[in-house]
């Protein structure tokens, strides 16, 4: 890297931060300026208006600055250690790990959360990061792979936390607003908890500056000087994780600051590690203060308060896309190879697949829990009328998502592409939740048209970006991640009220077959079948597109049209599934790979085998959701995310292990 003379606009950044702080003060302080200055210099507060200044307004501003700086610092450390400009507490899974740990501990050991929140939170963050590291490998941290692994971990952990919250609803209403990141303070106790920890971590980061400098010069050079980098890097990663953990423990989930701040810092001209860390912390503080200002303004205008964290994601995600789409590195184009099975789909594998499908069907139809315990009988007509739409709906959804995944992985030429990772499911969910929020219609009755509009909107965006950037996997993944985050922000604003409506949306987000009607199930299954037939007819296209643009065009394929058609088909499949039963994760990602693993490597066999595998996965998930916690029912999508996510992580881990 060329060390250009750095002209970091530090005074400008500082002035911006101060202006935002001043904005807070002007907006929220109702006492005379002279009195305010007196309070600052130590005069005892008299009236409540004065106490409010000293114990609500000022600590809130200070908390925004502190947590913003902590997240900026954490993001900068993550990005410098990994050399990956998409690394951050959010994208590496650390924040959702911390969040899940606190949710679990709140339920299982409330005393632990009260006494040792940061350690619970840190343990979760470390676990998530270790998983991502295990999947991506040290070298994989450099590129897309780490971010996608982080996304997988996020999806998995969110599914787990969602299921827990759903089952113990009244105990968790207070977690909704915390999960959305609320900066409200009622004194300095939180801040006096955060500040020393933040200070310690900052000192640690300073101690590691030299190592970061050497790292920038090249790891080889550092090793040659006899410096073992590993312990240093481990220590710095731990500091970044600790910063993430304390911010989550103090104010909940604040997304995107840690990702955006270091990138903005570099855009402002930060070059050396010290500059980048300083600028990231400052920009992080300014960003969060600004977002909090917006949250305060909106809370004043709306009946319910608006959580700050949701706003950071709402603004941060699009900003990130704008910022990064021109700055792709070579590592971002790196391919990722998934495990391959035998070259052909052998009869044994076919027989095993058929057996799985058959037994899943029998299991789903006949084995269930009732008030009298477990029963294994053919269902009576009425029971059957409850079960078949769910089973058929699950099967149709699984098949549709799997097919969508096959198409996307071939068209995008990225083995981690799938409707949920690329944001197509998010687009549909986004449209549905937005419609619910704006019109007050129940989310269960909004309809497929709206979902389709959302999903196709994402696809159009994707196409536009893909065209300009030569189909770079990173851009594609980036759009997906960003759209997912925007949806998440919107949902969090909707959920923050913590009323029964929040739980209805949360239940829907799990992807449940509970409300699938016979008509919905039939249409889902019908569309899946038609989709499989169409994909089978177009299998030559799929083969050619996957082989590369040049090859495809040489064989006479109109590549642009074919790609648009494939993407539209994939988006429509994902939209229909989302409209009928809510977002379904991991099936679209996993089923194509499972098909490859049993030998369906060519396009023809894959478009047939993957939907069957997806259907089996969803039918089994739905069955487990119905019987495991009887009489409670967990959404099939949640179980599929747990099963699929777990399996996916294990596969990726073993893949790494196999390579040594």
């Amino acid at each position, binding site marked *: 890297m060329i060390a250009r003379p750095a002209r970091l606009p530090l005074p400008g950044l500082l002035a911006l931060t101060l202006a935002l702080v001043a904005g807070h003060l002007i907006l929220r302080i109702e006492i005379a300026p002279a009195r305010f200055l007196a309070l600052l210099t130590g005069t005892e*507060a008299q009236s*409540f*208006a004065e*106490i*409010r200044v000293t*114990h*609500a307004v000022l600590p809130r501003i200070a908390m925004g600055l502190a947590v913003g700086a902590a997240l900026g610092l954490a993001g900068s450390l993550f990005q410098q250690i990994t050399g990956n400009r998409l690394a951050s507490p959010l994208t590496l899974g650390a924040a959702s790990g911390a969040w899940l740990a606190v949710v679990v501990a709140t339920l299982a050991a409330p005393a632990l959360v009260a006494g040792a929140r940061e350690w619970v939170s840190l343990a979760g963050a470390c676990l998530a990061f270790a998983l991502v590291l295990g999947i991506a490998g040290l070298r994989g941290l450099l590129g897309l792979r780490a971010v996608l692994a982080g996304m997988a971990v996020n999806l998995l952990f969110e599914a787990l936390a969602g299921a827990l919250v*759903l*089952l*113990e*609803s*009244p*105990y968790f*209403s*207070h977690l909704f*607003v*915390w999960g959305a990141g*609320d900066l*409200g*303070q*009622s*004194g300095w*106790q*939180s801040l006096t908890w955060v500040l020393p920890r933040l200070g310690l971590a900052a000192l640690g980061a300073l101690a590691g500056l030299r190592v970061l400098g050497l790292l920038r010069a090249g790891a080889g050079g550092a090793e040659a000087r006899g410096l073992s980098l590993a312990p240093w890097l481990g220590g710095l990663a731990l500091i970044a994780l600790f910063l993430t953990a304390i911010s989550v423990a103090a104010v909940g989930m604040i997304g995107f600051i840690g990702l955006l701040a270091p990138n903005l810092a570099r855009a402002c001209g930060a070059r050396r590690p010290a500059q980048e860390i300083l600028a990231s912390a400052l920009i992080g503080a300014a960003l969060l203060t600004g977002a909090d200002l917006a949250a305060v303004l909106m*809370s004043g205008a709306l*009946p*319910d*308060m608006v959580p700050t964290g949701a706003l950071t994601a709402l603004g941060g995600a699009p900003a990130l896309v704008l910022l990064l789409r021109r700055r792709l590195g070579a590592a971002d184009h790196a391919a990722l190879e998934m495990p391959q099975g035998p070259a052909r789909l052998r009869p044994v594998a076919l027989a095993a697949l058929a057996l799985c499908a058959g037994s899943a069907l029998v299991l789903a139809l006949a084995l*269930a829990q*009732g*008030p*009298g315990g477990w029963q294994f009988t053919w269902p009576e007509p*009425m*029971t059957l*009328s*409850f*079960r078949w739409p769910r089973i058929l709906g699950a099967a149709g959804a699984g098949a549709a998502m799997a097919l969508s995944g096959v198409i996307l992985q071939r068209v995008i030429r990225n083995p981690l592409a799938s409707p949920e990772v690329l944001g197509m499911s998010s687009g549909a969910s986004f449209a549905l939740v937005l419609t619910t929020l704006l019109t*007050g219609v*129940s989310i*269960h*009755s909004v309809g497929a048209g709206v979902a389709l509009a959302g999903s196709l909107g994402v696809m159009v965006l994707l196409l536009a970006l893909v065209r300009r950037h030569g189909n770079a996997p990173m851009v594609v993944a980036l759009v997906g991640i960003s759209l997912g985050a925007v949806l998440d922000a919107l949902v969090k604003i909707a959920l*923050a*009220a*913590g*009323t*029964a*409506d929040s*739980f*209805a949306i949360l*239940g829907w987000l799990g992807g*449940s077959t*509970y*409300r699938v*009607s016979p008509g919905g199930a039939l249409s889902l299954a019908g569309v899946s079948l038609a989709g499989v037939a169409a994909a089978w007819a177009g299998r030559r296209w799929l083969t050619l597109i996957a082989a590369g643009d040049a090859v495809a065009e040489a064989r006479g394929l109109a590549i642009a049209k074919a790609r648009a058609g494939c993407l539209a088909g994939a988006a429509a499949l994902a939209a229909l599934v989302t409209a009928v039963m809510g977002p379904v994760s991991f099936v679209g990602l996993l089923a194509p790979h499972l098909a490859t693993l049993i030998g369906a490597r060519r396009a023809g066999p894959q478009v047939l085998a993957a939907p069957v595998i997806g259907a089996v996965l969803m039918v089994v998930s739905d069955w487990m959701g119905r019987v495991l916690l*009887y*009489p*409670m*029912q967990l959404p099939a999508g949640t179980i599929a995310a747990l099963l699929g996510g777990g399996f996916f992580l294990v596969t990726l881990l073993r893949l790494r292990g196999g390579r040594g």
Partner: protein
Amino acid sequence: MIRARTPRRSAGAVFRALLLALSTALSAAALPAFADGPVSVTDRRGPQSFEAPPERIVVLDWALAEALLDLGIAPLGAPELTLYRDWVGTPAMPEGVTDIGLRSAPNLETIASLESQAIVAADLSAQEVARLEAIAPVLVFDAWSADHDNLAAQREIFLELALLTGRTARAERLLSEMETEITRRAEALARAYGGTPPDTAVIRLNDAATLWVYGENAVPTAALEALGVANALPQPPSRWGVAQKNLDALAEVEEGAIIAIRPHMAGAQVFESPLWQKLPAVAAGRYAEAGPVWSYGGYLSLLRHARALSDALLALAE
């Protein structure tokens, strides 16, 4: 609806009310219980007929469970019983009731296996109602909505359920007893405060910095009104009648009192903060706690709220 906004009622009026209550009770006792003839009740879709008052009834939400239990009938099945016992408590859910799963997704197969004679639900979509109709006759009410008076809806549901189960007399008696008791409590409050009780905000603590404020269309607010107490922190009507606020919103309660409904959960940590201690109401000793009561309950939970809130306010007056 109870309109007890006149706490300074004369002794004669009270006497007349008592007499009325007594006569209602007597006439109820004198009449034979409803014969097992056909009954017709009105839900959101119009009149629904039953050949005989059903005894085996499944309810799909907690407010309906409360209403049925208040009428002296144990439901056959009800949702999330463990959480009901923690959060609602009164009226007590007897042993032997079958848990039918989540309120948001009651288990249809379980409901079917109970062989109920009626399923009572609230706020379901037409599609969900149609599925339940396949199991047993369904009554579905509009219970919680920003567009109507939730309390009036709960009163209607209570009376329709009484009609359904042939317990109208008991329901009338309970209502008049409730009215009498609330009137008595309103008078006790007025006496204790030598006139009008202070305006009061009813809240539920969320965590150290956020809380829910009960506004229009919420049961606690209706209970305040019935007790002749004005809401110190009015909120626009919404579906559940609550708004989530930061702690400093409570500063608007300057002359009035604040009552927090238990359980506080994570919110208890707020008591240590100087901001809380310096809230005008708290600093002046006009803060009290009430409950636990379930804020989204059936019509008689108005009485349970009135009891809890008036006890709290009486304690403050001492």
